[in-house]
């Protein structure tokens, strides 16, 4: 109803008409990044205030969603920095360097299999939260929110090759965390366990 109101009240080419349809998504992303409803609201509110003068620019975008996500992410990072914390961990060369993917890293039960054993979204969410901040942000944006690596090259201002390596490393870490907390022993058939509810 609110979207209807916004589009009707302010017109489809207004700031409300252009950005309004994305606000729910931006809020969800802000909540996933910040971990709190209050912080998510603050982030989105600040973002909208900053974006308001840029209505025309946003209207001209072919794909406003990744652009908006990038703006939100930058704001999130800036807030953390101002607060004296850094959500970004300087990646060690062996963590985020190019071409570190090797098949041995995937040996043993995969994170997907372990997640399948868990069958609990809260365990999976906790494991994601336990990742270092840059890996966590990437997993949230790519695996949870569904941005493609191509889109994330813009959102995170990081080359696709680096993102691939980081994502691979994040999943390895995810696997380790799920393994540490796995309630049952792997059955040997984990790769075929459906994670669909």
């Amino acid at each position: 109803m609110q979207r209807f109101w916004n589009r009707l009240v302010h017109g489809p080419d207004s700031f409300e008409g252009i950005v309004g349809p994305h606000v729910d998504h931006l809020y969800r992303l802000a909540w996933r990044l910040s971990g709190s409803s209050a912080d998510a609201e603050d982030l989105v509110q600040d973002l909208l205030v900053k974006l308001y003068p840029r209505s025309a620019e946003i209207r001209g975008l072919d794909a406003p969603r990744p652009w908006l996500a990038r703006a939100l992410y930058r704001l999130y990072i800036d807030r953390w920095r101002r607060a004296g914390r850094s959500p970004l961990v300087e990646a060690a060369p062996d963590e985020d360097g190019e071409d570190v993917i090797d098949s041995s890293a995937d040996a043993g039960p995969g994170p997907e299999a372990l997640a399948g054993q868990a069958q609990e979204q809260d365990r999976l969410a906790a494991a994601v939260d336990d990742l270092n901040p840059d890996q966590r942000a990437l997993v949230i944006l790519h695996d949870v929110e569904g941005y493609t690596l191509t889109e994330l090259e813009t959102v995170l201002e990081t080359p696709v090759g680096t993102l691939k390596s980081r994502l691979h490393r994040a999943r390895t870490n995810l696997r380790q965390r799920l393994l540490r907390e796995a309630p049952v022993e792997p059955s040997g058939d984990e790769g075929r366990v459906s994670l669909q509810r």
Partner: protein
Amino acid sequence: MHCSDVQRDIDEFLDGTLEETRQAEVRKHLESCDSCRQTLEGTRQLRSALREIPAPAPRRGFLRKALRQARRAHRQPRGAGAPGWFAAGFGSAAAAGLVAWLVLAPVGPGQGPGPTPATDRLPTVELAPGRTESVRLAFDAPERLEGARLTMRLPENFELASHPGRRELTWTTELEAGRNLLELPVRALAGGDGELVAEIAHGDTVQRLSIRLRAAGPAAFLAPNPVPAA
């Protein structure tokens, strides 16, 4: 193509962003490699599971409040009082973008619609047939009103550009305390004039605001190809 190549490209393969030839190479490799097929399926399942992690929706009213706040933060300081033409009463304001006010004064329960001003005193918006113009209505609410029911009725030969063919729309919404601006994208389909009626019902109170829409030009029906005003 080696297994390590497939594993490197697996997310782009699932994203569908690999270039066509590379996508075909990965697909071909998967046809003959059990290990990579298993990795692919596992990755697909993990992504699916992660995508199902729930996130709360924003609380009710947040969207509208946040958008309103953004607009307010950049609003130019206004002069005191309402625009002169309004302060002087509902005269004719022959310009698109005319703003008509309706003050939702608290009234007693059961009170019917307020009197509609005489037709010759209605604020008037001139429209060019075939063009969409913004007609702005402002509702001043004494307090936040939840569950207000808004109805817009347009005269014959006019429609809301966002809802082609519709001349009447009703929806339930919230009005914030203070000014609520309603911008209607109105299109004249033919020459002529008529009365636009905005009705707000809240509880037992119903109030109406009317404005005159006037479209100069030919009386012929313009759809589907709008004709500029003569």
